[in-house]
């Protein structure tokens, strides 16, 4: 038994699925206000600088004031993401890392972005690359003062693509999503697993885990599962297999002894369950 403080899902990286652009504009307003109150630099990143959200932001006096002093901006999508519309995950993380450093150098407490990223995930290939990027940037956010709300237009993408994106974020407004796989601070292992994992989302989970591309350290892949509510035998077997393929043992840290009993029952090589308190 190891003891660990129970943590909630980290804030700061949200997947926002929307049908109505006005509802996205409401969210952007909310994030602008929170960002300015926290002394951050705020960016609204969009493919169309004249979209509903950008227009509404520009009508706000606080946005205009902040824009003049470099604390807020509407940034064209293509100036932050690569031109061919399939992002290079590492380069994109580096770009936001520089932007965060610049915000800090300019005296802000960090950088917060609301990004309308629908156009970057329109094809299966784009979606695959971008979800990998989502995990990398999530990892960056655990150590640096960078926050993002990634907005996706559901009618254009469909529920499946939205689920593939949302499950790679610690927070989302997607209601029927059962699990999340997200990054943790380096001291807490390789990733966190939250929610419920069963047959209904097994394939989605496999896809998410492949995209997270977790790299073992000292022969272990440590998954923090403080907020795990349920996990079935298929998921346990898959985690064990995933870790073994990477030459490692999966270490699942969860407060739920039922998971440990299940692992004992299955005698799976490649996984160890540690029950936390």
């Amino acid at each position: 038994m190891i003891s660990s403080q129970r943590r909630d899902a980290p804030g700061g990286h949200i997947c926002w699925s929307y049908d109505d652009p006005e509802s996205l504009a409401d969210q952007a307003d909310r994030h602008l206000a929170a960002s300015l109150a926290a002394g951050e630099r705020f960016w609204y990143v969009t493919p169309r600088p004249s979209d509903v959200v950008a227009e509404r932001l520009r009508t706000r006096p606080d946005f205009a004031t902040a824009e003049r002093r470099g604390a807020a901006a509407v940034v064209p999508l293509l100036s932050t993401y690569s031109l061919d519309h399939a992002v290079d995950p590492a380069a994109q993380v580096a770009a936001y890392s520089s932007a965060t450093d610049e915000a800090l150098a300019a005296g802000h407490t960090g950088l917060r972005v609301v990004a309308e990223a629908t156009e970057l995930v329109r094809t299966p290939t784009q979606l695959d690359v971008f979800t990998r990027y989502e995990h990398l940037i999530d990892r960056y956010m655990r150590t640096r003062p960078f926050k993002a709300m990634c907005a996706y237009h559901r009618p254009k993408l469909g529920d499946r693509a939205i689920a593939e994106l949302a499950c790679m974020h610690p927070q989302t407004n997607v209601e029927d999503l059962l699990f999340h796989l997200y990054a943790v601070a380096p001291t807490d292992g390789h990733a966190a697993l939250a929610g419920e994992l069963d047959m209904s989302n097994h394939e989605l989970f496999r896809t998410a885990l492949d995209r997270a591309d977790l790299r073992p350290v000292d022969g272990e892949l440590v998954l923090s599962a403080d907020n795990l509510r349920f996990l079935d035998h298929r998921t346990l077997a898959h985690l064990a297999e995933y870790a073994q393929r990477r030459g490692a043992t999966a270490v699942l840290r969860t407060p739920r002894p039922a998971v440990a009993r299940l692992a004992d029952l299955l005698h799976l090589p490649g996984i160890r369950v540690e029950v936390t308190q």
Partner: protein
Amino acid sequence: MRTGAAATHHGYYHEAVRYDCDDELLAVAVPFLLGGVDAGEPTFVALGERTGGLVRAALPAGAGVEFLPGGDLYSRPAATIRFYRQLLAEQVAAGAGQIRIIGEVSPTSFGATWDWWARYESAINHAYDDFPLWSMCAYDTRITPPQVLADVARTHPRFATPDGRHVPSPTWTPPADYLRQPLPVVPDPLQARPPAVELTDPTAAEARAAVHKADHGQVPVDDVEDLVVAVSEIVTNAVRHGRPPVRLRVWAGDDRIVTTVSDGGDGPGDPFCGLLPASDGAPGGLGLWITYQSCNHVTWQRDGDGFTLRMTAGNPYTG
């Protein structure tokens, strides 16, 4: 190299002992156990407290017989099989030519939970047949109901008698046949009431939530969590392999939670389903085996409407 009555037998030599008085039990058990020790065979006793004490007292001090905790060992049949298969594999790996065990199903299991022990007694003819095991299952005829004794006769190929004989059971029925026959399932009185939750075609997540809803702290947390695992597996099986509609019902009693999952299909085709992990990857086999390890009672029933599996956490109704 095997010795005694099972000397020329291959695999599992399964016997029942029906005794009318304690002396009859000892007349069978003591020579059986000492014969094992004399032959250098690993020899075990897995009897309850009273009968185990009788045997212990009748054996010479330091006889070399190992006593297992009989009561705990016989709480869930699938777990009992898992324990014994592991024990037997270890003994064989250590070089045992034969292993001898005398054990007994707890008399508290002779009521409404007997059905899954009857399935156990039948299934082990197959489950332990990989090992050179000679075992005796003891039944005290003074406290064993006639219908239980009838099942004992059908599930044991032979009887060991106090006068040293090994007599074939006239009603012995091979497990593949016995396990395909419907066993009477005693309804839990809770089932006469309206269920606390009733759902048609639930998702596994909705089924798990329904079990949590019926949890008022009347059952240990671990048992509730294990029931959640079981119900999730069974609803998943019913949706994937059964026929709609799938119905989930949950009853909350003072000391237990009872859940039934039914569908319009025929249920699993493998007669050993639940008691053994499906070795051939039969649909849903692993989920059903996990269910049997996770609940304090599991029953299954086929009728004109389809297949129903009932799972109990907490203290099952014993009748």
